[in-house]
């Protein structure tokens, strides 16, 4: 009975969503001219937010990759928050799960996985580092780069049952990266006028040393995400006695 009710409710919900989301397409889904009054200085803007991003990103932030500019500069505060969410989740996992290591016996991985992972690991780490160092130039950035690095460590955990992350090193990396991010934000408050504001020269767009604080923040995020995801995988591997 409960299942029937649940199915009926779920399909009704689905139908409502389907009808309403199909309406979004029909409604004008694009630019609308509008006048927005800035509550801080009372000035008016007549350009919508997305078109502002498209036309001004390169001049304002020096980054070629507009997505990165939005993630790290325009909405950098959100990114600091998202990094904190991941940090909170990793802390929560290690707070609740950390017990003993070892415990039950695991089957050894086969030869191909063991030798292959040795061969592939350096390239995985290199790719991850490339992705987050070049975040302001090419698609990618700190989050995917960190995830790639964590996947390298996950591969090691799969092929060597006795492989454990060095807990102290991981947590120090994680902390240092987080501190770097928040500290750069505070430096922005000191050297420029607001939190997380760029205070370095923008440089020539398209070069690796450009876009002010974006590469520094993205490298910090890369280290942070990489160490957090690998520590979560490491904690989940441990056995609770």
């Amino acid at each position, binding site marked *: 009975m409960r299942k029937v009710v649940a199915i009926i409710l779920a399909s009704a919900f689905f139908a409502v969503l389907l009808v309403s989301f199909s309406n979004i397409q029909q409604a004008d889904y694009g630019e609308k001219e509008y006048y927005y009054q800035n509550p801080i200085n009372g000035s008016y803007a007549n350009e919508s*937010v997305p078109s502002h991003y498209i036309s001004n990103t390169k001049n304002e932030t020096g980054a070629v990759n507009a997505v990165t500019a939005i993630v790290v500069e325009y909405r*950098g*505060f959100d990114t600091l928050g998202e990094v*904190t969410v991941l940090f909170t989740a990793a*802390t929560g996992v290690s707070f609740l799960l950390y017990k003993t290591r070892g415990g039950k016996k695991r089957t050894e991985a086969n030869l191909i996985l063991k030798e292959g992972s040795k061969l592939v690991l350096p390239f995985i780490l290199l790719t991850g580092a490339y992705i987050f160092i070049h975040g302001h130039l090419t698609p990618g950035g700190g989050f995917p780069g960190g995830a790639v690095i964590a996947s390298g460590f996950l591969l090691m955990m799969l092929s060597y049952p006795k492989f454990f992350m060095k807990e102290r090193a991981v947590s120090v990396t994680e902390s240092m990266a987080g501190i770097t991010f928040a500290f750069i934000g505070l430096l922005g*408050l000191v050297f420029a006028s*607001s939190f*997380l504001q760029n205070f370095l020269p923008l440089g020539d767009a398209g070069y690796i040393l450009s876009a002010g604080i974006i590469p520094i923040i993205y490298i910090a995020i890369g280290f942070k995400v990489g160490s957090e995801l690998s520590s979560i995988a490491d904690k989940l591997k441990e056995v609770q006695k």
Partner: protein
Amino acid sequence: MVTPVLMIAIPLLAAFLMPLIKKAHRYFTFSILLLNAILSVLLFAKVYNDGAIYETIAGFSPPVGIYLAVDNLSALLALIINLFATINFVTSKKDFKFSMLYLLGVTGATGIVLTGDIFNMFVFFEITAVASYALVASKKDEKAVEGSIKYMILGSVGSSFMLIGIAIIYSQLKSLNLYDIAARISSMDPKMMWLSFSFLLTGIGVEAELFPLNGWVPDAYEGASSNIASFLSFGPSKASIYAIARLLIIFSMSRTYELALYVGIATLLIGEVAAFMQKNEKRMLAYSSIGQMGLILIAFSLIKDTSYAIPAAFFIIVSHASAKSSLFLISGKKGFGGITSKYVGLAGVLSLIGMPPMAGFWGKWYLLMGIADEKMWAVAAVIIFSAVIEAIYFARYLHKNLGEGESEDLGYSIPAAVMVSVSIVMGILPLIYNMAGGVLNA
């Protein structure tokens, strides 16, 4: 220089720093929380004198970048959250990871209150919710894990609903700024407006303990250790009910206010009746929290109609945050053994059922005044009926506990006494009415 962003940036920096300084983590966390409470006092003084503060982040003016918007009510709420967090933290006896999660949870709740950007609000919701899931489970027994898992499932579904609501608004208005959305919401297709409103209300409603999204509440409060139950009742829930108030002001349609009123009445009635039927003490307190959240929502749903709404909501928030948190703190033992916990129990209950001279009295008084102005007698009858039920079960609670009991743990009852004193002070100083009556501009 007091800027609101420091209240978010400094605790985040401190939380990142915590694994490096493990040893003195309790003093460190305590001093950061205290610093935040002091900052929020200064912030409130500044907002009260100079009017609302808008602070840009990353140097891009609002529709493009993010900004923090602080008015009287949000500064006061930030003060309440950080002050109680500081007092409550005295009872913590766990390791540095607990301190970290606690600090992050408080920061998230502060961020929700201070931010002026809807996606930023979502991010802070995530921080405080994820920290709360872990904190609820911190006792690591079966009940704690059950409460935590229920909370986590409902909470994460709720956050995805909230995200969809934000996405709909962005697809229509191309903006995430609360002020901007409020100014142009009328240009949105009404169907889309209702869709996004219902997604947002459902998403935030999980955290704000609204009916019918509050299935996690009794289990989480029962399973959590007493200082975390206390944290849940002054931190995340208060911040999210404030977020709902901002939402109501943004959408600002008579029908959305009406919907909020009905949800509030249902939450109030069901919470109070369930508390009345409940035998387990912690669960009873949890259901009573649900009822109080309904009362706050009723107050906020009258914002447009009467100027009493904001003071009413503010006093109920103060009364509930201080009284319920202190009752949870002393709920670990059987009965109120010593004089301090007897005082806490009595003062807390008096404030919750709305007796003068406590803060709870002013809350219910202003609420009933506002309702009487609008001549909504049915709502007034519901509130009085629920107050009677509340009085009955709290009388039972006092009768059971005020007699003999286990000897009290002063480490818990003294912080609880400090917390509940806030309720008394705010009851004696109804001058605060003038401050709370300030504009709540979204």
